[in-house]
């Protein structure tokens, strides 16, 4: 079937959702948020690479835009925390 590769990605996304809901109901304490965020990062990477076709994108600029946005956000959040947490 021509759509098979997209269906595989969808199955992976649904399985990851099931895993993240299950791990959230187990009690990992403070590490819990890291686990669910790591799974969210994997899921969004799958969507970006395969549904949004970044895996077959030839232009370096477009390939790098999302990592640039994530780094920018990480810097914003990181710098804000150095201020907020040590006041």
């Amino acid at each position: 079937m021509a759509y098979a590769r997209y269906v595989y990605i969808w199955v992976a996304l649904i399985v990851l959702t099931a895993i993240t809901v299950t791990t959230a109901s187990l009690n990992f304490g403070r590490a819990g948020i890291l686990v669910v965020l790591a799974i969210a990062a994997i899921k969004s990477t799958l969507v970006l690479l395969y549904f949004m076709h970044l895996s077959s994108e030839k232009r370096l600029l477009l390939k790098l835009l999302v990592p640039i946005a994530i780094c920018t956000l990480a810097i914003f959040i990181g710098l804000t925390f150095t201020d907020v947490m040590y006041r």
Partner: protein
Amino acid sequence: MENRDHGVGARVGMWLFLLSEILLFGGLFLLYSVYRAKHPGDFHAASTELSRFDGTLNTAILLTSSLTAVAAVFSLQELNKPKRTIFFLGATIAFGLAFLVVKAFEWTAKFEHGLYPNAAVLMKRPPGEILYFGLYFTMTGLHALHVIIGMTVLSVILAFVARGKATQERSAALENAGLYWHLVDVIWIFLFPLFYLIS
């Protein structure tokens, strides 16, 4: 595949717009992370009041709508089957509507418990819970607005395909509408654990 770079200008423009969308939500994620760090207990307590079932159901609906959206683009770009594209676009819009219906039930249940921004019942709660529900309504509300915009854009593209204005050779608008829809999905992928799975 040869004509993939045909609409490169449109694609660059779309990705720059998506970048600005990521930073728009990014500002709200920044607020969320700071307030959560300041009030971890209150966030935890408030989160138990959300329906994990509704959140999970909506996640599954939105992920499935992303599958039908990418199938719509693939059907026109690679298979040149506009009728299938119309079917898949219709399915994507229907899933979007289903997402909004679940969201409406969820919000209605919160309103009935007196939980909405500036509500008297909510304002008597600890500060962290007030912040949590403020962020919950702002972020899921802004996201729902994006779902509505996405459904509108997809409907316009569906009409384009039906009238032969979007074809295999002229598919940039369809592709960009698909990209927008997937980005809305990506944002939900992060909203879901941050609001529903932290209790």
